[in-house]
């Protein structure tokens, strides 16, 4: 299968060409194989015979991770005969609620949503589910467990993501020295999981001192402020772990502006700028939060629900892990190709 992909890659000039060359059915098969599906099971999943209407929303298209997810969803939707209408969360719980309220008055074959504020969409989503529409949750829990009978929940393992990057960074430190963790927003379930994973691994390194763990709320300007004083206070800082890559790259700018170097940086998300930063040695490692898998699989799950009649908890489990690899220099180049074609 990988040989087929390589051939196609050589011929294709763009991701659109890749999709065209593979053809819809072959593409679905190839992607499911890449995604780790049993090919026999994948046969159950068919391209929609009639055009399906799907409504999708994620936290906010200002975030590159979300914008990439939208592109991935639309690419997969095209292959599977689904017409996607997007409702932008605009990185605001109240704006997302208003737009989902508006979405809920219309008729959809299926709905897939990444919630910005946990628990804020219950009312309109209940109405959608009561109307018999499958609702797929992406990346973030929509409501505390048991409150909403959703179709399935496709998400990464944030604890694992925190721990695998921490492992790479701590090993690169040689198991001793000072490290800082710059956190995302403390209320974010992803940030909480990543912090937990980091600390689990850190516990195995008694000679490493965690000197700072302030939240920068995903805000790169806050990162600059925190790291400016952090580097003044701890000029011997050896490494930094960040809850996303954007913050790690922002800290790198502060480090360089101070004329310092050699501080080992690790992040989460593995968006292309960070993968390139791993390739050029700016970052030690990052881990893929697989935006394309999460959004693409949601399309697949929606089609399976409508066309194959998959029932939640019976034909499809309540939770599907969308895993992503840790990115180091060894696998970074291949990973960039996968992202370019919305495969991970």
């Amino acid at each position, binding site marked *: 299968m990988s040989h087929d992909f390589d051939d196609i890659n050589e011929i294709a000039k763009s991701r659109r060409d890749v999709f065209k060359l593979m053809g819809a059915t072959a593409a679905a098969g190839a992607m499911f194989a890449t995604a780790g599906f049993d090919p026999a099971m994948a046969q159950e999943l068919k391209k929609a015979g009639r055009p399906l209407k799907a409504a999708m929303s994620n936290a906010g298209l200002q975030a590159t991770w979300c914008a990439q997810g939208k592109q991935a969803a639309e690419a997969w939707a095209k292959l599977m005969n689904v017409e996607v209408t997007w409702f932008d969360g605009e990185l605001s719980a*109240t704006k997302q609620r208003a737009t989902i*309220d508006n979405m809920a008055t219309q008729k959809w074959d299926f709905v897939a949503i990444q919630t910005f504020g946990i628990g804020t969409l219950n009312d309109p989503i209940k109405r959608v589910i009561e109307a018999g529409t499958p609702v797929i949750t992406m990346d973030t829990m929509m409501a505390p467990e048991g409150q909403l009978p959703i179709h399935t929940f496709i998400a990464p393992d944030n604890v694992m993501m925190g721990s695998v990057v921490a492992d790479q960074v701590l090993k690169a430190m040689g198991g001793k020295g000072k490290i800082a963790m710059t956190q995302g927003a403390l209320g974010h379930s992803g940030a909480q999981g990543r912090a937990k994973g980091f600390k689990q691994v850190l516990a195995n390194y008694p000679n490493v001192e965690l000197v700072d763990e302030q939240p920068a709320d995903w805000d790169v300007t806050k990162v600059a402020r925190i790291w400016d004083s952090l580097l003044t206070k701890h000029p011997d800082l050896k490494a930094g772990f960040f809850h996303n890559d954007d913050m790690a790259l922002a800290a790198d700018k502060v480090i360089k502006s101070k004329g310092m170097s050699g501080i080992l940086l690790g992040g989460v998300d593995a968006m292309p700028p960070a993968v390139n930063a791993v390739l050029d040695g700016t970052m030690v490692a990052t881990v893929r939060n697989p935006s394309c898998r999460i959004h693409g699989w949601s399309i697949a799950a929606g089609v399976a629900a409508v066309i194959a009649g998959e029932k939640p908890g019976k034909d499809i489990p309540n939770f599907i892990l969308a895993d992503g690899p840790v990115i180091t220099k060894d696998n970074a180049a291949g990973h960039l190709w996968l992202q370019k074609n919305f495969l991970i």
Partner: protein
Amino acid sequence: MTLADSTKSQKSSLKQLLSDQMRNIAPIFTLIILVLFFAVQSPVFFSVANLLNILSNASITGIIAVGLTFVILTGEIDLSVAALANAIGITMAFFTIQPDYVNIATIPLPGLICIVLTLASALALGAVTAFGVTKIGIPSFIMTLAMMQIANGVSALLVRGQIAYTFPDLITLLGAGKIFGLRWSIIVCSLLLLFAHLVLTYTRFGRYVFMVGGNREAAEYSGVNVKMIIGAVMIISAMCSGLAGMLGVAYFGSAQQNGFDDFLLTAISAVVVGGTSLFGGRGGIGNTIIGLLVLGVLNNGLDLIQIDSFLKILIRGLILLAALVINVYAQKLKEGGAEG
């Protein structure tokens, strides 16, 4: 008087009427155009469910906008409305028992006491703003900016990155409940708008609010206690924001840090798009209602038609800019008319 004089006089009075009413006519005209456009573009637009949806989406903003209308009519501004709404919503959650999975230190109190204490917190924060603006003499822009930070600090401190889901039953009913298919939040907002309109139109206090905004010096010379009026509108604004925060957290289903951030611009937009003058003295609750409907219909309609997600934000901005241009232009026409 010759026929030419009479025609000239008629034209002049028509121009006068138009310049007087421009700030009222323009938003209504905008609303009609938007309604017609979306009704033609989407069959769902005129469904009862969708119209109720527009009202329900506007209800929480509407409660904040009531208080803000008083403030803007006096020629002042309140930038703390959204932060204060969030802080008060979170304060209410702090006084309510939360489920086991919510890791927040709370002081659970009986529902009614919780509501009274929460409203008292809003009153206290409003009083601090009023004191800063009227007694110390800090411009409202700066004072409410400081209050915004304070309220954000209160929110962060109480909720500590966690999310609260439970609120007193009465508030849950008013924020998220329905009666005969109509959301209670729409009813509360409508009653508040009506009450505010009556106060502004038929009471001495209401006339003073317009006087202070229209010509502060003249109001002072007429014996109006300007500081008292400004202090009062700041407290009214805080109370409205507090109420919106309490109902809002129930409406949205959870209380969390920065939950209401967008309401600041939305509420100011609603008041100004409706035609209330940013310089004070002109406008009123009627204008705010039209402003709320313009924004509500616009946001709703853009979600009903097939349009690029990225374009929606630009369109909203352009409509807001057009409304602001009309607002300022109407003010200039009025001033020009008064001078002529």
